[in-house]
């Protein structure tokens, strides 16, 4: 066990998976000599050499498109998109090919591909560097969408994604890259994709969040618990698609109240699907509307103003209290 940042934990997963299986390879912009602009790929080039660690030219669609070809050719590519904002340039390949090869060929050819990408705000970056667009990928059948929240979940889920026979969009909350540390076991560890995690037990209300939203959520929950003497369950979603509907529905049935905290803009986001799930399977258990706390439906403002536009502890706390008081 070592206390690691998320960057170190992801790096550990890459090292161990590349050691375990020599069909695993890493490609992307600046992932080799430079070890990634966030140093997530540190040491890989030195240890595994050029054919397995590829500094590609600057073209997102080709990074994903050639990785699909590698996967069809028996490899397990882990492609990095430098910032998730540029991943939409590869959506044609992801939606049109990665997501469909298995159904297109009746199961004859799958695409065991991982596309890693730092996403989300909070690091004072330039335009297009702060978005959360997981809902777009989640709407595409054939893709899986995973978002870890802590070093340990990041490491275990990335290992699972690399071993997964299907394409996984692996979105890394870059605000959490170095914000805190967590014990991460040295021995390889995986977690099941498609399973949410109960980050905190509780029975009076359930808050669902993922990625970088988990920390302000936990902070807000603590404040409310302390102030009110209530107990609040926190669900760390971890996988956006396929959604762990069972855990969500159980939470509503057991607590009657739910708040969803989402970094993405409000409309047509993942929280809506969570609400739809509750509507389908637990409507009668609801004692209050499910509260969405999300970014506003504006283009993510440039970094001087962005902070006020992401959900923060204060908004989350108020949302929880409102829902408790409903």
């Amino acid at each position: 066990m070592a206390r690691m940042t998320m960057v170190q934990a992801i790096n550990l997963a890459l090292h161990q998976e590349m050691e375990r299986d020599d069909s695993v390879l890493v490609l992307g912009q600046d992932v080799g000599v430079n070890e990634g602009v966030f140093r997530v790929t540190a040491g890989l080039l030195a240890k595994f050499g050029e054919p397995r660690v590829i500094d590609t030219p600057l073209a997102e669609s080709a990074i994903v498109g050639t990785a699909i070809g590698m996967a069809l050719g028996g490899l397990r590519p882990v492609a990095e998109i430098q910032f998730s904002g540029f991943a939409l340039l590869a959506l044609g390949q992801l939606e049109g090919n990665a997501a469909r090869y298995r159904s297109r060929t009746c199961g004859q050819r799958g695409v065991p591909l991982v596309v890693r990408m730092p996403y989300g705000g909070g690091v004072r970056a330039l335009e297009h560097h702060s978005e959360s667009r997981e809902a777009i990928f989640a709407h595409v059948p054939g893709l899986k969408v995973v978002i870890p929240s802590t070093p340990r979940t990041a490491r275990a889920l990335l290992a699972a994604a690399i071993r997964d026979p299907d394409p996984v969009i692996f979105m890394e909350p870059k605000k959490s890259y170095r914000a805190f540390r967590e014990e991460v076991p040295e021995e390889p560890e995986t977690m099941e994709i498609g399973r949410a995690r109960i980050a905190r037990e509780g029975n009076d209300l359930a808050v669902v969040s993922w990625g970088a939203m988990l920390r302000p959520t936990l902070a807000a929950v603590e404040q409310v618990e302390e102030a009110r003497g209530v107990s609040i369950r926190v669900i760390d979603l971890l996988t956006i698609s396929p959604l762990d509907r069972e855990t969500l529905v159980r939470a509503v049935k057991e607590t009657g109240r739910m708040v969803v905290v989402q970094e993405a803009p409000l409309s047509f986001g993942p929280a809506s699907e969570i609400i739809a799930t509750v509507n389908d399977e637990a409507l009668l258990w609801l004692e209050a509307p499910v509260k969405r706390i999300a970014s506003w439906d504006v283009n993510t403002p440039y970094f001087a103003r962005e902070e006020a536009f992401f959900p923060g502890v204060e908004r989350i706390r108020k949302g929880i209290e409102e829902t408790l008081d409903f």
Partner: protein
Amino acid sequence: MPRKIVQRFQVPFLQVLDEKGKVDPKLDPGLPDEDLVRLYEAMILAREADQRMLRLQRQGRIGTFGPATGQEAASVGPALAMGPRDWLVPSFREMGAMLMRGIPLSTILLYWGGWEEGNVFPEEARTLPIAVILASQVPHAVGLAYAERLRGEDAAVVAFFGDGSTSEGDFHEALNFAAVWKAPVVFVCQNNQWAISTPFEKQTASETIAQKAIAYGMPGIRVDGNDPLATYVAVRDALARARAGEGPTLVEALTYRLMMHTTADDPTRYRSDEQVKPWQRRDPLVRTRLLLEKRKLWDDEREAELRARCKETIDEAVKAYETWKPPRPDVPFDRVYATPPAELEAQRKEFLASLPGADAGKGVD
């Protein structure tokens, strides 16, 4: 204003077999007779299949279909040049090459009949499915080539696409990656001079597709795409380069789409018969037959026998296609992921329950 010239490039053109069936002796690849016959037979089969499929489409027995009549030489020459371990990455107008790789015509019919099962090929065919998003298959070919080399295989990849497809970003990005990686891949552009109604000169201001190779620092060559020996030679040489680790090549096969874009298209809206006529005279089948006759490999009797054989093959394929039994209706649910998640299994049940009459409930269990 005088400027120093620092780079010079040239683009070659290759024709081996001319319209009269004459082989340039300096360029003759010296193919054995059986290969010459094989090329011809493959082209006739492709042509006959085209004709039949047009009829099947008109009769509603298959869906929209894109014929390749007139372009057969651009398809079969490269296929002949490929080794058994090489990969074929087709666009959607490569029936000739696909048949030569051993994909049954009945499978191809399933594809145009609207069944994913039409993409399930014998593994030995080493062929990816037809690509509908134009140029999106080109990066796959590059990645596949990279994978083969990384895994220590000697295999190369031949990727097809049309002239229109070269305008897509994916074409550009893929060729650039291939050249940087020196990936063992051969890019074959079937320049049939049309992208639906868009003529070549509105597609690009470059005079040839071959010259686009210069942008990637890779060799490009234009060949007479109605000459199966030229397409064969160019791809054979490019494959040799690829295997020798010298990197990719762009081969432009200059040909012409003699018929409609697809059965949904009416070419009289955008081009005249006058424009098409000169290209009918350049029919690859005609010159190849002339060659075979000159070499005493062909006569009317063999022709009749071949046509009869093709008809039989096609009849059998159509029969196999039309008597093919689709699997249970819920198979799409099996194919989204290797293991369907719980919610998909729940949806499968609902789906089965929603089926009308006899099919209702018929599913996985």
